């Protein structure tokens, strides 16, 4: 008991510090992220970083729906997969460049997100969770059986690597920077959305949809819009994945992958952008660090998750009010000066 209180005191002290020096932290993290590929030359570490950042992107998108809007979606692996297949088919068969492939993936997945969200998001409660679970399975079965298009269980191989305006990129450093740029763009988009009135409305729907409606928030429209944006982000992440890994098959985009993404979002902190970074990166790296422990790996992973949920159920950075922390710390500083 004493140990956990010490731990949480340590965490809250750090958060206060972070709240006071937000800009410094962001700048520091960004510098580190940019310098990273120049400091590290190990391919394994680079690969981990690329995959980690792709999960950051997926988590950020999913956080919009799960963290900010309070709806569990188990369908994001399917969106990720549809994005991957779209990009794979277009780049391989039509020779499309990376940017149009990203765009096409976003549009196609956005349409799927809209069609799935339209009937479900009109309802309240857990319907979305159940329907998205089913959706994930349906998409997997289609990928598995639609031989002429998806090549079934054999998957699609030989997907061209990234190419922008006819210039193709093959180095790990370039993959890293492509995903880094995608992550930065996603972060800016989510941040912009969350700080806008639309974001406020989303959170109000999560906290109390009746009151939100009484305030005049068009809740159904906003829920669908957020779901579509979130799925589009997953679609672009899928398009990245296809061109990065150059081989995709249905086993990557199963219900399990959806679950992993959700765990990242929840572990890092519902409704927190730094939380999505933390959750995705930590849960990409952690299983790798534990790799030496062989079959005990998943056991330790599981125990860690359980402890985590007991100590801080809303995730490490869930519900941290940075503005308030900042104000408080500033007030205390003032007093100290006096």
């Amino acid at each position: 008991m004493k140990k956990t209180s010490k731990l949480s005191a340590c965490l809250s002290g750090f958060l206060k510090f972070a709240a006071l020096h937000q800009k410094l932290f962001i700048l520091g993290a960004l510098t580190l992220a940019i310098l990273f590929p120049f400091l590290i030359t190990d391919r394994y570490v680079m690969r981990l970083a690329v995959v980690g950042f792709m999960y950051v992107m997926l988590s950020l998108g999913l956080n919009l729906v799960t963290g900010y809007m309070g709806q569990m979606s188990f369908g994001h692996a399917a969106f990720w997969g549809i994005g991957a297949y779209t990009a794979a088919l277009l780049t391989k068969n039509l020779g499309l460049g990376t940017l149009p492939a990203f765009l096409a993936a976003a549009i196609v997945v956005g349409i799927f997100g809209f069609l799935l969200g339209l009937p479900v998001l009109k309802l309240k409660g857990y319907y979305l969770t159940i329907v998205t679970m089913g959706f994930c399975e349906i998409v997997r079965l289609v990928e598995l059986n639609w031989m002429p298009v998806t090549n079934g269980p054999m998957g699609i191989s030989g997907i061209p690597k990234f190419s922008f305006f006819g210039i193709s990129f093959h180095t790990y450093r370039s993959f890293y920077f492509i995903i880094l740029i995608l992550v930065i763009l996603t972060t800016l988009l989510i941040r912009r959305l969350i700080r806008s009135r639309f974001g406020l409305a989303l959170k109000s729907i999560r906290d109390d949809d009746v009151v939100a409606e009484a305030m005049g928030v068009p809740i159904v429209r906003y829920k669908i819009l957020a779901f579509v944006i979130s799925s589009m982000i997953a679609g672009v992440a899928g398009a990245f994945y296809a061109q990065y890994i150059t081989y995709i098959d249905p086993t990557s985009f199963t219900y399990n992958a959806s679950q992993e993404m959700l765990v990242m979002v929840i572990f890092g902190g519902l409704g927190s952008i730094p939380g999505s970074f933390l959750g995705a990166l930590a849960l990409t790296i952690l299983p790798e660090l534990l790799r030496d422990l062989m079959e005990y790996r998943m056991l330790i992973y599981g125990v860690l998750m359980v402890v985590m949920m007991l100590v801080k159920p809303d995730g490490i950075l869930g519900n941290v009010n940075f503005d308030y922390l900042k104000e408080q710390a500033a007030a205390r500083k003032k007093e100290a000066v006096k």
Partner: protein
Amino acid sequence: MSHLKIEQLKVNYGGIQALKGVDLEVREGEIITLVGANGAGKSTLMNTLMGLVRPARGHIYLDGEEITGLDTKKIVQKGMVLSPEGRQVFPEFSVKDNLMMGAYLRKEKDAAKELDTVLQMFPILKERFSQTAGTLSGGEQQMLAVGRAMMADPKILLLDEPSLGLAPLVIKEIFQMIQRIRNMGVTVLLVEQNARMSLKISDRAYVLETGLIVASDTAERILNSEEIQKAYLGGL
């Protein structure tokens, strides 16, 4: 002229008739109390007025214009705003964000202006400005809920049980605040179980019993009526 007029309003929940034909009239600048026991249909009436519940029959007029069946958004824009039962603030929002939600349909510039006015009305909210609403005391949360409704700049404010679960001293404060709101030119329709207090500050009152209005009169006469005292004011 009547500000809000309700004619023969009927609402069904599944097979149950929650409102069986309610007539009610609110004039400009009045405080009206709706008295009634649990399950009488008070909150249903409020929610129906706001378009959150669809009526089976009847008409609602705001300033002579029919608003029955309109979207909540449109009704809020026309100047009728509800502060829902049980001080439903957004617990994880800061006080500021809670207030800004109230002005959701207004231009951001107007909202910022209104924020100053509301903070002047409720100085305690200024003190708690960036604190999370869930950490506020019950009374403060109720102030916030009302302040949030005021952010929409309503012409008519519907208050659903503003004194629910609050300490007597705080309740007194809430009722003073309601009077202040009226003095600012806002018409108030008040639903209360704490009938004695609310009748004291009201102009007129209606008594709702299982979906029907069984009495309507000046607040004073309702307060002094023996029957009402027996039924709603705890004997005396």
